[in-house]
């Protein structure tokens, strides 16, 4: 029995990695080979798809646009959620618990519901097709999430630390930036990661609120149909490149995420 202990995890990892391997495999094949038949390895190994993505502006600008609005959204979400989470954790005010729950319910609404009002509103405000429009729209679900995660981390810090700082003479802004933020650094890291992730994978709002100037990579990928059909190799390469940023971020915050899970907030 014990000799077969490796079996289950191995099978699990194989099933888990198979689609990703297949994507990687496809990205190094030509479209003809992909359509031609089944093969475990690329017969004609080519990096042409990648070259195309990195040289064609319609492709790489998709990545740049995505990174801009995702970064913008992460910064906005965390910097607005931080004071909010502090208030929810430290102060008691009328309806605080209801407000906190209501904030969470925002995450339950499907983004599609908000697509039309956002589109109309942003068009009226001439925000349509800007990075800012998408970043702002994504705050809809990212700020509640960020408040929720950060509140957990902040409540883990004893209130007496705040008081000790005041007794030592720290003003609130100085205490918050010098003492408090480093203290919940891992929480901020985890929060930023989740904001990044959810904004990065969100397609509907990003696609609806942009046309040319701020078109995200996911939207670019859906428009690769050409006269010769879909360019599958190119799509696969774009897919691989879409996974990479998330993988990099996850590598850096992997320890903090475990901590967040332990606190029951992630």
């Amino acid at each position, binding site marked *: 029995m014990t000799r077969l202990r490796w079996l289950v995890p191995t099978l699990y990892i194989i099933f888990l990695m198979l689609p990703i391997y297949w994507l990687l495999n496809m990205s190094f094949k030509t479209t003809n080979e992909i359509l031609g038949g089944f093969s475990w390895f690329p017969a004609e190994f080519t990096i042409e798809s990648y070259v195309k993505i990195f040289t064609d502006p319609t492709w790489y600008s998709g990545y740049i646009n995505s990174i801009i609005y995702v970064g913008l959204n992460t910064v906005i979400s965390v910097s607005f959620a931080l004071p909010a989470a502090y208030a929810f954790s430290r102060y008691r005010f009328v309806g605080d618990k209801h407000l906190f729950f209501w904030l969470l319910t925002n995450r339950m609404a499907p983004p599609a519901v908000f697509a039309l009002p956002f589109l109309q509103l942003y068009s009226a405000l001439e925000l349509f097709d800007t990075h800012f429009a998408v970043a702002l729209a994504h705050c809809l679900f990212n700020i509640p999430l960020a408040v929720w995660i950060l509140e957990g981390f902040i409540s883990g810090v004893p209130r007496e630390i705040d008081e000790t700082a*005041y007794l030592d003479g720290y003003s609130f802004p*100085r205490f918050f930036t010098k003492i408090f933020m480093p203290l919940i650094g891992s929480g901020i890291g985890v929060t930023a990661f989740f904001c990044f992730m959810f904004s990065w994978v969100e397609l509907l709002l990003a696609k609806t609120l942009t046309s040319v100037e701020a078109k995200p990579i996911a939207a670019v990928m859906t428009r690769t149909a050409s006269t010769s059909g879909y360019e599958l190799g190119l799509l696969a390469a774009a897919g691989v490149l879409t996974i990479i940023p998330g993988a990099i971020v996850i590598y850096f915050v992997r320890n903090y995420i475990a901590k967040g899970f332990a606190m029951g907030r992630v």
Partner: protein
Amino acid sequence: MLELIDVGKRVEGQDHIRDVNLSFDEGSLNVLLGPTLSGKTSLMRLMAGLDKPTSGDIRVNGNSVVGMAVQKRNVAMVYQQFINYPTLTVYENIASPMRVAGADAANIDRKVREAAALMKLTEFLDRVPLNLSGGQQQRTALARALVKGADLVLLDEPLANLDYKLREELRVELPRIFAETGAIFIYATTEPHEALLLGGKTASLSEGRVTQFGPTIEVYNRPSDLITAQTFSDPPMNIVPMTKTGSVFVFAGKQVPVSGDLVRLADGPYKVAIRPHHLMLHAPAGESLELEVTVSTTEITGSESFVHVETMGERWVTLTHGVHRVEVGDRISVYLDPRSFFVFDNQDRLVAAPSQDILPHEDLASASAGHG
């Protein structure tokens, strides 16, 4: 000088602090003594300015400080929990109040090293607090309070979570170290013997009220009422309702002849409180009252024994030196000496206390040896 005038604090319709009047002199050592939830921490938070009183006034040198920001008051506070800045090194933790005040680096360095040496932290200055033992963490907090040079130093059961040895050591050192700074030193504790060891003045607290404030030894020897007497006794005093008629106390059919001050008391019902170490298991030399009791439990700590006994529905506890071998259920005799009686009237006010020339030192010795 710090004065509290008719200070009260209500939280959600509940009185946490009621009608507190206290005044503390500069350079004085004061103890707040009371059981858990008696309002020690609430009172300290009011004095520090972390909370605002709902009534009354708090004055420093005659000027009201109610509503003044914590940052503007020169106060240091150490909590029962070990509170330090986890992201800063021990050195930076201690230096923190001086850094905020904008002291120059050389001055900070000198003071931090001085305080660290006093608190035996010199070799840990580069570590972060969470890598230290509990005792070292609390000493870091104490060192930070020390370098601040505050006018008011509040220590809220600072040694409660420390191990025995360290507690003994710091209890002796702390008042001495802070006395040199000339600050008003206020120390909260639940333990009567800690108050006795610290000396100075004691304010006894019960349910948010100060029941008595005066020199520690006086509060111990002449508690103004029953609650104060109970607060200042661990294990609790044994209370016996007695009726005085003429020159005798009548208690459960027994007559106790009284002498000295007690003779002057008016006839009527009284509550007599007897300290556990005045309930003796061996007949003393002089006159005494013998009572038959049943042993219900015994606790032996080594140098002394607590024997819990039952008599006529009352549970009493006796404290004696050495190890006493008595079995649960045994019928034994205990001896009372009327000269050790604290006598309280119907309103629980003290009317007579044991005269101190009878049992002067024994009281203190056994009380301080009490627990550890």
